[in-house]
């Protein structure tokens, strides 16, 4: 069966030298994973392509130190040897090794692992007294020779090494096997790959520098891993993730626990880590072990607002003391790529007298400065560069790193956007050719057609159902369509059939295909303020999957057989269908049709008038029935306690010349809610279905109930206005929020809702096997089971759910228990990945919005420009200032009442504010300043006037600076008037509603809410795909004004109508 041989190993464990004998089995047939293999190896999975000029075999040293260079996708035909992989595993730790493993697994990289040590002829035992690196080099060389012979010399093999002696020793032994140093290799074979060469140089330099470091100890040494492990078990140390305070990155960091099983019960809060010495080289995000300091040294957290990165001196206002500790060891580094900025020339010179080492400042304020060595410091000054951390020795004040890629000059739009993407871990390379090759062809010469096989297996709804879509104007990726029709009366009276038809993306994207992998890594479409990165290639998202009007499309449908009177569900049908959408409506048009206003439906214009009226009547009837059903569904959820939440959004209205005339909230139309409600309903029913079919591995979405203590701020603020907020359940919260309305100031309710939203955690995907049943509940929507099903074009989770639903249907049809696509553990990991990516996408979107806000205000002079002065509402107070909300721009920010010189803001008779020496007093609902000229008070929810200016920052993102100008409102609060929708347009729908109200008492509540100011439910925001006039238009305009170089942006006109709001 196998040939056996034995080798001796010497290894030490627990300090003692122990002689360990291990067996080592060799075999003749080890798969080579090359498509050129002549010996018919059992090559499964990934195979090296044959159309490269050569194969490259990196030796152990190269794999260990220069793996990043080999990560370039352009470098093809890489054969990693087992010897090299083991060297990586042993010397660089698990993280690096896992990276190598995922590299080997990734089908987009042309590299394989050859198990050379298990191959009879390529293995060479280590000789007595042979140094390890020599032996490794010999092994790798032997493997390269074997590989060459195995392929019968069809491909030249290049072995790369850093060991010059090896080049000399083995260089001329064999024909067809060449040995080169890495640098030489890159220069000869990849002269076009400048980036790889630069990366190589930067790593090499970093390696060189590492040897020559001072011996002065700056930090205490970390404890060894065994001690840490024992200490954590015994409860002496606490394990957790380090979180650095963004505003006080030098001083304050907190450690959040991973496990809840803390032995010491007093430790239910985070542990504070004060100062750099106590933090002991831990970087934000690292998993650390913390030792608590004696209680006498415990400190509180600083409560004051800080201005910029200024160092605050003197007495600090502190909260009560909290557990304080120091880092004794690091369990797992969590370093990622960081964006840094090179200092300008003067600084460079002073820092780099002895060698080219410079300190660069990361964009993320939580990361310490990084020392890197480079020769390009002069060229790169004021550029933003991606940097990776290498090490942080106890003798060095700053961590060492090396540069990876140059992004561009700081302050340029493209650089800043790239920075935001990288800092959030978003990688969006254009789709590769291999991926696009998988796509079906659809061009004007060769239009895509239906597959006759599919037509047979699918339920054909083209002639039987009136299908239509309602989307924002100009939307091109139509995920969802609706249908409603009357069914012949059943035994219990008349019946209705409501249908939701979703684009069948999984028909085109097969599981495990390259496109699927890419979509999985992206997990979602990324919407930035000025652009969009699609999850799927455009041929799918804008054409074949998009349920456009008048063309045949595949769909995944859910259809309910409803009782026309009670709207109780008789039967639900799930399945794949074939549809042709008759009308592609937009929200405004649909609402106009509902209200009975004159509106032209583009699909009907060409028809003769008689026919047109019939069809129009049909459509309107369908819309009305749909609205009726949606109201009922909404009422059902409301009685369960569904919440109306509020986020902050900016919307701008433009005139013909694209000038911003005003900022108006979008008219909340009832039809928005109708569509959203149908989608929620579909999601809910699909969740039920897949959970029943796969109780252990269904992908659902839950929204955990918020922790009560997070509501304190909301309750305190509400009390200031005399409202009480009951937060015991979601229903109580929804009702008390509805009551908390100030007739004079609608903003109060809006702000309270914003605060309620902030108190809540995000909804998350999870696998049913990983969570107890009572945690499936969706708090915000008040549904016991929920998932995402309706937007497979822009969310990967929906694609998973589609596949699950398909499997569930197949199972029902008697195909036996369908194979579960993934185990619960895998699914849970995938769910976490999608959650992380969604968070990253949201964060990136928020940052890009802020970026554009700054660009907007950047070239306006705050002193003279009218637009820089705005009305603001105070919603929270702090020790030295307050937090305000500017409804006009949807901005939130801090306003300082005390500056660094100790002066405070004093209000004059006419409301104007001035800086004067004085003191500051803060209480729960107001903050007052006392100066020589008297006392002035700022109350919660008071309207004040602030001036907006941009605070430029070289290394970080620019921030907006707010300064109080007057304690009076800026002008008659015009934006507020607009927040209440004009009553006229709603008159008719009101009448209709009166009728419904009698039938459903519960829906009354919902109607009242609907009449109120612009609160947009989170779900609605989610399903609405774009809004016009919108932020995009504002920013597009800003960009044209502010930036000359926009050619690189590459945003087509098509995407102009497409920015979506963040998914909830």
């Amino acid at each position: 069966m196998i040939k056996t041989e034995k080798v001796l190993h010497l290894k030490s464990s627990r300090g003692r030298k122990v002689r360990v004998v291990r067996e080592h089995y060799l075999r003749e047939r080890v798969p080579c994973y090359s498509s050129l293999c002549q010996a018919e190896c059992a090559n499964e999975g990934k195979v090296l392509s044959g159309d490269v000029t050569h194969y490259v075999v990196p030796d152990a040293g190269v794999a260990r130190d220069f793996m990043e260079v080999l990560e370039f996708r352009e470098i093809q035909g890489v054969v990693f040897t087992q010897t090299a992989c083991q060297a990586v595993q042993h010397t660089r730790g698990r993280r690096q090794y896992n990276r190598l493993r995922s590299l080997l697994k990734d089908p987009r990289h042309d590299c394989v692992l050859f198990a050379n040590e298990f191959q009879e002829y390529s293995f060479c035992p280590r000789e007595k007294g042979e140094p390890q690196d020599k032996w490794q080099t010999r092994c790798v060389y032997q493997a390269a020779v074997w590989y060459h012979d195995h392929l019968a010399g069809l491909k030249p093999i290049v072995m790369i090494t850093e060991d010059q002696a090896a080049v000399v020793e083995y260089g001329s032994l064999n024909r067809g096997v060449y040995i080169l140093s890495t640098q030489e290799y890159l220069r000869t074979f990849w002269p076009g790959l400048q980036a790889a060469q630069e990366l190589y140089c930067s790593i090499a330099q970093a390696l060189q520098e590492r040897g020559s470091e001072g011996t002065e100890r700056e930090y205490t040494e970390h404890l060894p891993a065994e001690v840490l492990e024992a200490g954590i078990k015994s409860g002496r140390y606490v394990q957790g993730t380090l979180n650095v305070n963004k505003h006080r990155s030098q001083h304050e960091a907190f450690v959040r626990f991973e496990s809840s099983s803390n032995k010491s019960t007093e430790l239910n809060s985070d542990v504070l880590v004060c100062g750099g010495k106590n933090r002991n080289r831990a970087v934000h995000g690292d998993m650390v072990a913390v030792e608590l300091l004696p209680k006498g040294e415990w400190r509180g957290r600083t409560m004051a607002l800080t201005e910029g990165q200024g160092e605050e001196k003197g007495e600090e206002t502190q909260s009560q003391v909290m557990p304080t500790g120091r880092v004794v060891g690091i369990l797992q580094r969590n370093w990622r790529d960081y964006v840094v900025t090179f200092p300008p020339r003067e600084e460079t010179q002073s820092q780099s007298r002895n060698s080219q080492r410079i300190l660069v400042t990361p964009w993320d304020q939580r990361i310490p400065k990084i020392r890197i060595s480079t020769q390009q410091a002069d060229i790169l000054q004021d550029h933003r560069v991606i940097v990776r951390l290498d090490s942080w020795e106890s003798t060095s004040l700053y961590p060492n790193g090396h540069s990876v890629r140059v992004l561009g000059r700081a302050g340029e739009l493209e650089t800043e956007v790239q920075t935001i993407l990288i800092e959030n871990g978003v990688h969006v390379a254009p789709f590769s050719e291999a991926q696009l090759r998988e796509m079906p062809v659809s061009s004007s010469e060769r239009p895509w057609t239906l597959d006759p096989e599919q037509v047979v297996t699918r339920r054909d709804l083209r002639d039987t159902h009136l299908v239509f879509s309602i989307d924002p104007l100009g939307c091109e990726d139509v995920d969802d369509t609706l249908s409603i029709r009357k069914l012949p009366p059943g035994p219990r009276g008349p019946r209705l059939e409501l249908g939701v038809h979703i684009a069948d993306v999984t028909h085109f994207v097969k599981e495990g295909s390259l496109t699927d992998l890419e979509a999985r890594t992206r997990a979602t479409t990324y919407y930035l303020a000025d652009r969009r990165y699609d999850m799927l290639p455009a041929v799918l998202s804008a054409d074949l999957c998009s349920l456009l009007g008048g063309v045949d499309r595949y769909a995944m449908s859910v259809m309910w057989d409803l009782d026309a009177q009670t709207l109780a569900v008789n039967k639900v049908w799930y399945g794949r269908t074939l549809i042709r959408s008759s009308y592609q409506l937009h929200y405004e048009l649909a609402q106009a049709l509902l209200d009975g206003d004159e509106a032209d439906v583009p699909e009907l214009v060409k028809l003769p008038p008689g026919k047109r009226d019939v069809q129009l009547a049909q459509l309107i009837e369908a819309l009305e029935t749909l609205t009726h059903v949606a109201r009922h569904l909404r009422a059902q959820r409301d009685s369960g306690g569904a919440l109306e939440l509020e986020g902050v959004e900016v919307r701008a209205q433009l005139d013909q010349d694209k000038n911003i005339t005003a900022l108006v909230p979008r008219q909340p139309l009832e039809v928005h809610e109708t569509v959203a409600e149908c989608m929620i309903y579909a999601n809910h029913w699909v969740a039920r279905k897949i959970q029943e079919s796969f109780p252990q591995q269904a992908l659902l979405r839950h929204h955990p109930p918020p922790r009560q203590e997070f509501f304190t701020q909301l309750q305190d603020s509400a009390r200031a206005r005399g409202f009480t907020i009951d937060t015991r359940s979601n229903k109580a919260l929804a009702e008390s929020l509805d009551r908390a309305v100030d007739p004079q100031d609608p903003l109060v309710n809006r702000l309270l809702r914003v605060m309620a939203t902030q108190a809540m955690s995000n909804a998350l995907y999870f696998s049913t096997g990983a969570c107890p049943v009572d945690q499936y509940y969706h708090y915000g929507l008040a549904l016991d089971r929920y998932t995402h099903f309706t937007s497979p074009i822009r969310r990967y989770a929906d694609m998973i759910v589609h596949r699950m639903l398909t499997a569930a249907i197949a199972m029902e049809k008697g195909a036996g228990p369908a194979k579960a696509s993934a185990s619960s553990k895998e699914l849970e990991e995938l769910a976490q990945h999608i959650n992380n990516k969604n968070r990253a996408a949201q964060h990136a979107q928020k940052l890009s919005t802020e970026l554009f806000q700054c660009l907007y205000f950047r070239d306006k002079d705050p002193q003279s420009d009218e637009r820089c002065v705005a009305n603001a509402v105070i919603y929270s107070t702090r020790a030295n200032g307050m937090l305000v909300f500017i409804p006009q721009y949807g901005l939130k920010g801090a306003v300082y009442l005390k500056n660094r010189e100790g002066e405070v803001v004093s209000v004059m008779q006419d409301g104007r504010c001035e800086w004067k020496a004085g003191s500051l007093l803060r209480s729960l609902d107001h903050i007052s300043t006392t100066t020589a000229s008297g006392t002035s008070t700022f109350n919660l929810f008071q309207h004040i006037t602030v001036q907006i200016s941009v605070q430029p920052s070289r290394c970080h993102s620019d921030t907006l600076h707010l300064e109080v100008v007057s304690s009076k409102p800026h002008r008659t609060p015009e934006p507020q008037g607009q927040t209440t929708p004009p009553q006229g347009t709603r008159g008719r729908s009101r009448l209709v509603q009166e009728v419904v109200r009698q039938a459903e008492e519960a829906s009354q509540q919902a109607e009242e809410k609907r009449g109120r100011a612009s609160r947009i439910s989170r779900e609605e925001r989610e399903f609405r795909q774009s809004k016009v006039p919108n932020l995009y238009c504002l920013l597009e305009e800003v960009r044209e004004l502010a930036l000359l170089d926009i050619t690189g942006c590459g945003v087509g006109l098509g995407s102009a109508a497409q920015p979506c709001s963040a998914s909830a």
Partner: protein
Amino acid sequence: MAGLELLSDQGYRLDGRKATELRKVQARMGVFAQADGSAYIEQGNTKALAVVYGPHEVRGSRSRTLNDRAVINCQYSMATFSTSERKRRPHGDRKSTEMSLHLKQTFEAAVLTNLYPRSQIDIYVKILQSDGGNYSAGVNAATLAVIDAGIPLRDYVCACTAGFVDETPLTDLCHAEESGGGTSLAMALLPRGGHIALLQMDARLHQDHLETLMEAAMTACKSISKVLDQVVRQHLQEVSALTGE
């Protein structure tokens, strides 16, 4: 060292085997002339010696005598030099006692004890070198020794261990795999009838995986039985050649 990778992505184990491959097995019967039966086995680096005396009269206290069948007496011990650090107590410790008991149970199930009422069979097993799977090497050696002694058995008793790593069952674990955490299941099987003589596992394993794990262990036991059968046949040939029959 940060946790050994017991099963690589390419499906190799630490020593280069695939998941279901066994270590190399070599065995000899009749290594000692003084005893009634004896055998020596090597399973990879695990080496075991088994010696059988009997059936003979019950020694020691007469009260142990059974009137309907023979008493089986097992003793398991490990040589002081069998591990990488010298072992202080070669036998009589808790682990050896437990192992002796397991061996006894195994062979009570396999030996046709009712043929020898009021007598005793002694089985001594010594592990000369330990590298995982001590129990199975001991059982396999004892089987050969019992056969060598000419004591009738229901079937070969074949033992093998199996573990579970990354949702894959591994068979015939070596020391590094056994001590690297995770489950280890020891099984002694009478292969022809598929009767399990002993099954032992003392770590956690999800119920769903037990079936696959047992399946793997059974296949491994059956492969071992083939090897043992070959050894017995070869031994017989040699012996019959020597005696000139």
